[in-house]
């Protein structure tokens, strides 16, 4: 399988923080519309793409939304104050550039602090170079949300860019969707909203789809860098099959089938036991009377930074594993 760098680069660069996913939704819609039977959007903005089949309903969920910063105040000199949308680290955020939906770019800095390690988001502001409040208000309004503004890079081994979380999951879902010609199963690919603020989109999407099985595709963290916290997932070691995180214990039926398929088809894989965090399966598996659910994770270094890094081999293996899972009759 050829690694489609062009598609990944395109989708990581599209604006779409939690609750403002309309632009990325349009890009993904256009990318997949010729490969699916039905396409719809629900009240919260989830994109739901159906590839019809006679068998069980499977909901595949990759979230479109990104972490970001929401503007809460514009001061008299035109500096912007903000709150977090999702898990924003002050240390990562300090001295980054950010971009708004309308293309306005700003720089993040902080009030003078004695000890940078004690930096809080409340001490920081966005400087868009405006001379006055009035000038700032011509570009930005209270309630606007901005995202990190940084470049996409890659070499033969890895890609590193902001927002692999979870545009790489969207990428894996899109590539699997395109590679499946016919399916025994009734597939609902959901590109979900508001995962970063608490799996909110997956919850309403699951209610609407009412699946028999759920599978989320999302990034997971790493344990393979200098003095990293012990964690048995690393780059270039294959697709990660989740055993648990803080939102879900993968259903053994789903987990064992993924392992079985990986072995059978010679797809490198690793098992993931994560002691915190969560992803869309956390919401899907508790839908209505319960849904057996699992997760395919893309091992990723430096999650929620602007240099999130993943292995091209691992990404390709995740596509292969997801495709294998969806093609066989469940």
């Amino acid at each position: 399988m050829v690694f489609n760098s062009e598609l990944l680069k395109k989708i990581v660069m599209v604006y779409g923080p939690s609750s403002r996913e309309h632009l990325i939704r349009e890009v993904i819609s256009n990318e997949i519309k010729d490969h699916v039977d039905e396409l719809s959007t629900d009240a919260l903005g989830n994109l739901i793409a159906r590839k019809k089949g006679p068998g069980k309903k499977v909901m595949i969920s990759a979230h479109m939304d990104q972490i970001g910063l929401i503007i809460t105040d514009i001061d008299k000199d035109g500096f912007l104050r903000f709150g977090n949308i999702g898990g924003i680290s002050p240390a990562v955020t300090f001295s980054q550039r950010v971009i708004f939906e309308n293309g306005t770019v700003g720089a993040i800095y902080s009030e003078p602090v004695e000890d940078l390690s004690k930096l809080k988001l409340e001490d920081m502001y966005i400087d868009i170079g405006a001379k006055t409040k009035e000038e700032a208000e011509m570009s930005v309004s209270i309630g606007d949300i901005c995202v990190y503004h940084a470049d996409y890079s890659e070499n033969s081994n890895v890609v590193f860019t902001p927002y692999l979380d979870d545009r790489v999951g969207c990428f894996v879902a899109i590539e699997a969707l395109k590679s499946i010609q016919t399916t025994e199963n009734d597939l609902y690919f959901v590109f979900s909203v508001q995962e970063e603020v608490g799996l909110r989109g997956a919850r309403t999407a699951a209610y609407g789809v009412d699946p028999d099985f759920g599978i989320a595709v999302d990034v997971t963290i790493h344990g393979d860098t200098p003095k990293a916290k012990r964690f048995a997932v690393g780059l270039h070691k294959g697709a990660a099959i989740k055993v648990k995180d803080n939102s879900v214990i993968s259903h053994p039926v789903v987990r064992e089938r993924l392992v079985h398929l990986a072995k059978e088809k010679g797809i490198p894989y690793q098992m993931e036991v994560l002691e915190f965090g969560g992803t869309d399966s956390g919401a899907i598996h508790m839908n209505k009377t319960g849904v057996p659910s699992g997760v395919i994770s893309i091992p990723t270094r430096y999650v929620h930074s602007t240099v999130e890094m993943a292995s091209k081999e691992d990404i390709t293996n995740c596509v292969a594993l997801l495709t294998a899972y969806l093609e066989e009759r469940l």
Partner: protein
Amino acid sequence: MLLKKLTEACGASGNEKEVRDIIIHEISPFVDSVRIDGIGNVIAYKSGKTPAAGRVMVTAHMDEVGLMIKEIDSAGLLKFLTVGGIDKRVLVSKTVVVGKDKIKGVIGSKPIHLQKRNEWTKVLDINELYIDIGASSREEAEKIVSIGDYAVFDTQYEEFGDDRIKAKALDNRVGCAILVELLKSSIDTEIHGVFTVMEEVGLVGAGPAAYTVEPDVAIILEGTICYEMPDLDTYDIPTVMGNGPAISLVDRATIYDAAFRKRIVEVAEKNNIKYQYRKTSMGGNDSGSIHTSKTGCITTAISVPTRYIHSPLSVISKFDYDNTLALVKAVISDLEKEAL
């Protein structure tokens, strides 16, 4: 007077009956139907002259923060725990009423004379406080109160200054009062008016209510944080008293829909209604449960700025109250014209 009646009623989370009875009595002649659901929410329907473009639900929670009796000691003093997020620093020496019979009590503690020097500088732990109901033995106390009884602050409604109201539980009887007035008024658009239970202990009632009503659009009415000392920077002030209804941006339970917010602002400007944004992402309200119910819906929260919430007394401005009611009415009549 409605707000006096509502704020002087006892209604800690899980014990909303007294508030619910007042509300049902007030609204019944003015709505097409009203019922109580399985968890205790009031769900009312008012048909209006024209159907709305989508199903509109307006909600306010009935419950308030309070205390619950957990033990009666040998001296007849009551040990308690908090129901909802009460600032424990404000409890000492406050008057409360306990149980259905509203037994008067005082929250007591060790006098300052007997406190050790290091106790002066720290807040008394809740285990060091008790409610004194004037009983002198467990047996005597047990005749008038029971373990599991609720207690709420004993605060009288009062108007002061040119424009201010002080009362307990303005969070969220102010939202209830506005919703009652809305349902009693001659609005043209059909709405579902919902008064929820147990918001203060985790948005409990709103989920079942939304599950039943299945709204397309929900408007949550609240009394929200207000704090505006002159030495604060503008970004540290969540809302300003007298600047009108506060429209929410984001909180820990919801990112409010930007398109709906823009429309509300346009409606406010067109109708010359003073408004402000709620400039903090702390807190959360029933919207969190409502917007993720079933296949989801669009929500907004419109709040009356309320000083000293979650304490024995809170303060609002009549100007803000009137403008919140005016804005909600204008938004609902705008929704009649065009769906979101």
